């Protein structure tokens, strides 16, 4: 087997693609959502019987050697080694300390070569040689000197190498599976949505995007994507429990309760690729998984005032597109986390990009509300008209929100006043609000075409 692998290495590059076949190897690659992959390398190994060392050079360059396991019928594992002492000129010289090397002096004037045997005494900062009875520093005079080594030390390798020492019960070729975890492989979803402004419909295509920065290429691999991560180490740190840290705008408005026909693993979804594929190093690969047309979508505006404060200049409202992922009048699928890019046709019918939004893992039947950017023509200015202190921790704030609309049609802006911590009450308001949560009040303000609208509210806040 070892000789076999080496032979493959020397094949001309044109036949490189064949190495997989020659090794009679099946790779299956399972990629989790956050930079982790499980590689199962099924191949035949030639067991000679007795103790034997097998080298695997074509594993991921970022292999986590502690996760390696080799399984085959009727073998025992003696030890597994991961050697990362790399063959470099400096290492080669270092390992030659105390040994003989050949030096070839080249006379720059005549071009004549003089060969000498030398013993390497040390390589600290410079190479000290013993030639006959003389001690010299290699190339101290700057003249050309070639150094020739007669062999590569055993433990120096061109790339990190995994080796497994086994004891085979009976001799013969048998299938074996080498499995390990490696970082450097990842995937996410990318969505392309085309919004039709005329009839408020959206076409959505979903792609899984695989990235490989593991330093290795996986030829002809059976690929499975898992929409989740088995790693729980950082899960606590990611919990949004910090009250005052501004949270990113939530995209899922109502979490869905429907199930699709997708394959599941525990509580996560699986996305197997239909065909085998080769994942080259540094390649970005996309495979389609969703294509839905004509889903009803809503276009709206949203403005969030993060605390009871003023702005010196009017701020743009956010442009919002909302649609369902349900089976009825929706995408009819759960969506793995990724980026959704929205396009719209311009007056000449060419699709133009109008913004993008990140989406989280979204169950089927959810309502998604995505902010794509700032509306040029719809703006809101929040103004603190008056703020009075009623007590040590009690304030009365008169807020006014000036909404303007430079579009030739009326728009409705969902205006959210956040930061209502503690006991915050609205004692007066020009339009009825809804309290989305204790901390957020919400109004739906209609602004006439090319016009303005004002909203005022008085807050009584106690901390």
């Amino acid at each position, binding site marked *: 087997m070892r000789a076999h692998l080496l032979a493959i290495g020397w094949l*001309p590059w*044109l*036949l490189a*693609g*064949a190495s997989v*076949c020659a090794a*009679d190897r*099946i790779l299956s690659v399972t990629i989790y959502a956050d930079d982790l992959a499980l590689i199962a390398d099924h191949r035949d190994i030639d067991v000679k019987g007795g103790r034997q060392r097998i080298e695997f050079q074509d594993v991921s360059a970022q292999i986590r050697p502690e996760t390696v396991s080799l399984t085959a019928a009727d073998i025992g594992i003696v030890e597994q080694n991961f050697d990362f002492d790399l063959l*470099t*000129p*400096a290492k080669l010289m270092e390992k030659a300390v105390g040994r003989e090397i050949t030096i070839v002096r080249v006379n720059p004037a005549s*071009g*004549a070569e003089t060969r000498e045997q030398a013993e390497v005494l040390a*390589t600290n900062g*410079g*190479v000290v040689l013993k030639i006959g009875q003389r001690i010299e520093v290699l190339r*101290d005079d*700057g*003249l*050309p000197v*070639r150094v*020739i*080594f*007669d062999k590569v030390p055993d433990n*120096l390798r*061109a*790339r990190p190498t995994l080796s497994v020492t086994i004891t085979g019960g009976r001799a013969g070729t048998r299938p074996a599976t080498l499995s390990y975890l490696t970082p450097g492989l990842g995937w996410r979803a*990318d969505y392309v949505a085309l919004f039709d*402004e005329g009839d408020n419909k959206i076409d959505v295509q979903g*792609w899984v995007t695989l*990235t490989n*920065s593991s330093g290795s290429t996986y030829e*002809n691999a059976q690929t499975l994507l898992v929409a989740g991560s088995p790693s729980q180490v950082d899960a606590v740190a990611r919990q949004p429990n910090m009250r005052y840290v501004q949270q990113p705008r939530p995209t899922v408005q109502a979490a869905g309760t429907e199930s699709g026909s997708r394959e599941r693993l525990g509580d996560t979804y699986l996305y197997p690729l239909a065909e085998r*594929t080769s994942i080259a*190093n*540094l*390649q*970005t690969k*996309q495979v*389609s998984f969703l294509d839905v047309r004509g889903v009803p979508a809503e276009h709206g505006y949203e403005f969030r005032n993060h605390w009871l404060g*003023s702005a*010196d200049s009017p701020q*743009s409202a956010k442009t919002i597109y909302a649609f369902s992922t349900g089976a009825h009048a929706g995408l009819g699928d759960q969506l793995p986390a990724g980026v959704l890019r929205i396009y719209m046709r*311009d007056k000449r019918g*060419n699709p133009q*990009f*109008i*913004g*993008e939004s990140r989406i989280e893992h979204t169950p089927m039947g959810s309502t998604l509300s995505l902010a794509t*950017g*700032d509306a*040029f023509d*719809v703006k809101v*200015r929040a*103004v603190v008209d*008056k*703020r009075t*202190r009623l007590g*040590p921790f009690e304030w009365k704030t008169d807020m006014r929100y000036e909404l*303007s609309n430079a579009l030739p049609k009326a728009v409705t802006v969902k205006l959210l006043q956040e930061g209502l911590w503690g006991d915050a009450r609205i004692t007066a308001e020009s339009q009825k609000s809804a309290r989305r949560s204790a901390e957020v009040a919400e109004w739906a303000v209609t602004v006439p075409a090319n016009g303005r609208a004002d909203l005022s509210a008085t807050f009584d806040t106690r901390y």
Partner: protein
Amino acid sequence: MRPRCPTCLLLTAAIAAFMATSAGGAEVSADAASDLSVTVYRSPYRGSGSIDIDRLGGFALISETRAVRLPAGLSRLRFEGVADGIEPASAIVTGLPDGLVEKNREGALLSPSALLASAAGRSVTLLRSNPKSGKTERVPGKLLADAGGGVVYETAVGIEALRCSGLKESFSFDSAADLSATPTLSVLVRSREPVTATVTLSYLARGFDWAADYTATLSADGATMDLGAWVTLANGNGVGLPNARAQTVAGRVNRVSGEVEPLDIGGPILAQCWPRGSTSDSPGLLQFDRSLAGGGQLKAGRNIATLALAAPAQMTDMMLEAQRVEQEQLGDLKLYRVPERTTVAARQSKQVRLLDRAAIPIKVVYGADLAADADALSIPAVKFLRTMNDAAHRLGLPLPSGGVAVYVEHRGERLLEHESGVRDLAVDEELEISLGASSDVAVTAAREGAVTEPVTPGKAARGAQLDVSERVEISNARASPIQFELRLRVAEGARIVSADHPLERKNGRPIFRLAIPAHASAMLRYQVRHSGG
């Protein structure tokens, strides 16, 4: 083993060429783009002001129409010459027959280090020049390792390291590996029959940006200004877009994909050696050959194609004949279309006229922005001009954010007075352009006194209240009367209880408006009450 690997059956020398790419299938290149469209978006992170040609943080949507001829069966269709800033995940290919298997962007580019890496473990030819004769010796050998920047090879003589001997050494490779010079996008497509199709490839690419660049020219009497503007768009990519339909989009769009797909742009062959300490102090003679460095950094050269950035606007008559961008609504954004096809070359900035409006009525105002209880503060006032973006003021069109250069007439010459920026302005918004600080108008604020009211018995928790008497003096050294606005920042819970000038409010903030005669100063007094807490 059974049909695990169907391509094994085809493994003959004749078909080896097909196997050049690992997934197999015929290699097909799409024709060069027959129609190009580029829509430039401004950097979402840049404030107002002009673009920075060395740091183009915006992006563009590029659509290319290309003709392709696909054979029956599986083929790999390559799109060459896409912009180097391509975001591969955003690529959309339309117009293909059904059966698109996957889209790929190869990340390894052809470079000296990539050549070496692909040759590791294979046979190469070593080139070594003889220092006397100058002849190049060709030694066949095998490349053993290229780890850690050092190169070790084996020839019939033994094992040596590259460029450690002081002789001129290099390798000659049998082929250029399977790598392309520029990022190449490819799709694996399965077609039932040979087809000729016109496909459109659209993708987002980084390394673009655009801004509006305004030039305002004040009239001699200071009552009106002429406003002209350019759309300045720049391409920092190494790929040009010839004869393209060009658009820009105004407004801020959301961008979330901060990550860049990894790309191996390669580098020089470093050929690191063993330590080469010397017994003398003279610097080492060994020089690594860095001239091979092919760093594919997006570095925008200053290749400004048309006029200088601050283009003179006195040629207003000529500008009236120049082509202008056409504006249309795109969702909640504004799209500006360059009316004729144009070439957006690699590393180029380009300008097209946005607007020209003459005799816009303006007001020149001096102002200062102070904390209401500031003490011992003396600052120059800021001069700005103000108008409304509406038809009555000869404007009334969306004004995309950008830089503004304000010019004034001086003895028949146009001189630059100040440069600043404007944000995105919708119709009917107030337009304010800063003209910078004016040392002629000085604002001095001082506390005249502070009185603490005693704690009221029975209201112990309320604490004391503090009344501050404030004096603000504004002096005008100019030969003409000025309009002055003092905007105050009042602390939470404080209010202005009395003043000797009428107090107004603007945007929720107290403001005093004063007219100050030529060579005169004005005194303003008010009291601020901080209610006890």
